[in-house]
């Protein structure tokens, strides 16, 4: 569906050239939800804008839904853009139009007759759950409702690809989740390919099938979301993964506990997929002469399975603790000794 080959984007600036996107290669398949994560300035915005020709690559080739977006111009590009919709962080609705007229806007552009437009708009309003707000102006809507209008507008012309430019970054956590649920629903129902960029790992975790991590214009790591969670390679990826698995306070808690329990070991367990269902702790206590103290834990659900981390404190004789750790290793549970007592 989407193919990005050796793409580079260089901006001239007073301090010399800035490589916003540096030799990126991506293949995104039909019906996939693909996430690009990176901090601001990583080049992800530029990258997603090259998918609908709002930015042109300095070098390389971008093909989306059989359109070579990096090459076509004029009416050909405008036609292609009707198949590649986009939603935005700040919604970008026309304040002068009602909800209904905002959603009808792309249909007007596509030359759909008025009768057809009204019918299609009603369908879309139902799809995004905005019944009863048809005649409201954007200024009368909440952030979540505005983004629903944005999504309805983006879906109006039955696009093949939906680009999400930090679509949930301006929303509160609860609204973010409801918008993400809507995107998953649309992906399943319409088979739409979704590309989203974000700086929140939560978004990637919740809806993406695959993820690419960007830093300084380069894709530094890429893979199925679960694999990346399980086994992050780069420092930046680890930091993003920690956003969801390890809340800020974990470090403080472990430090505090290490002081409190000078003996034994603090261990971080990583569960992936089915291993999250095992009664591991029970097995540990029954099988070994140790005490197990659960410090902190969390299980996250991703689109391709669950992923969990658990911090425990093991205490007992040195040999027993070693044996216990060996046992955990055999259970296909990742184990990492954070600190020795």
């Amino acid at each position: 569906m989407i193919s990005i080959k050796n793409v580079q984007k260089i901006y001239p600036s007073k301090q010399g050239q800035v490589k916003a996107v540096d030799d990126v290669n991506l293949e995104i398949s039909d019906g996939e939800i693909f996430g690009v994560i990176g901090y601001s300035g990583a080049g992800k915005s530029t990258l997603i804008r090259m998918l609908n020709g709002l930015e042109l690559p300095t070098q390389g080739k971008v093909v989306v839904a059989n359109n070579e977006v990096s090459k076509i111009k004029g009416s050909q590009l405008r036609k292609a853009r009707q198949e590649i919709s986009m939603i935005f962080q700040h919604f970008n609705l026309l304040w002068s139009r009602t909800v209904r007229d905002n959603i009808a806007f792309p249909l007007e552009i596509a030359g759909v007759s008025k009768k057809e437009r009204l019918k299609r708009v009603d369908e879309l309003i139902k799809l995004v759950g905005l019944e009863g707000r048809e005649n409201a102006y954007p200024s009368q809507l909440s952030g979540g409702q505005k983004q629903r209008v944005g999504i309805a507008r983006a879906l109006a012309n039955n696009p093949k690809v939906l680009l999400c430019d930090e679509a949930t970054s301006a929303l509160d956590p609860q609204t973010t989740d409801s918008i993400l649920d809507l995107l998953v629903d649309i992906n399943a129902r319409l088979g739409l390919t979704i590309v989203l960029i974000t700086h929140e790992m939560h978004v990637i975790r919740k809806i993406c099938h695959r993820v690419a991590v960007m830093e300084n214009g380069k894709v530094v790591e890429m893979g199925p979301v679960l694999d990346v969670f399980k086994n992050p390679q780069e420092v930046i990826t680890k930091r993003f993964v920690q956003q969801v698995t390890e809340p800020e306070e974990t470090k403080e808690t472990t430090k505090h506990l290490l002081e409190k329990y000078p003996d034994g070991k603090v261990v971080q367990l990583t569960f992936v997929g089915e291993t999250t269902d095992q009664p591991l702790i029970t097995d540990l206590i029954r099988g070994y002469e140790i005490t197990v103290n659960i410090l902190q834990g969390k299980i996250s659900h991703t689109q391709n399975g669950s992923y969990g981390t658990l911090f425990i404190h093991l205490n007992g004789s040195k040999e027993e603790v070693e044996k216990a750790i060996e046992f955990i290793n055999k259970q296909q549970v990742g184990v990492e000794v954070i600190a020795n007592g």
Partner: protein
Amino acid sequence: MDNFLETIKWEKLLEATNETIYMTSISVLATFIIGLILGLLLFLTAKGSMWENKAINSVISIIVNVFRSIPFIILIVLLIPFTKFLVGTMLGANAALPSLIIGAAPFYARMVEIALREIDKGVIEASQSMGTSNFQIIYKVLIPESLPALISGITVTAISLVGFTAMAGVIGAGGLGHFAYLEGFQRNNSVITLVATIAILILVFIIQFIGDYFTKKTDKR
């Protein structure tokens, strides 16, 4: 009292008011159209905009700045040959129109440009992402999204135009300015000057009221 009212010359006052209304409405209409086109061109040819073109932008910008800077009373005099060529005379309401429009349109063009710059860039980008052509962006996005500012701008311009017509009147264009100058000042009849002033004030208030009404009505932000 009868004597007092007689000195006002109601018929002449009415005629002068009509002339002022005529000059103002025609010049407001023309200023709106020309100013909108110039303002759009200024906005669209600016750096980073859809039709970025430094040459066209500088030329329009210079013309607008020059005509905006010339005091109106001097502009009328400068434009005498042009007006004579165009209208054939220097007298009457029609003769005032060329200088009124040339004086006001550049002023309004700048206001249009400012109004367009206020539009969120993201909204233009979103429209482009939907496959909107440049002309569609102009009449479906730029104008509707800046409409309240365009209306309040033309209201301010219309009020200045009422003032301009009064100045044009002094050099023979007719209207309330002419009436006040000829019948009031030159014949030393201050009552007439006062009445003409009140008539102009009423006109200005009406324009302001209409402008405010439509500005408010179109603003859904």
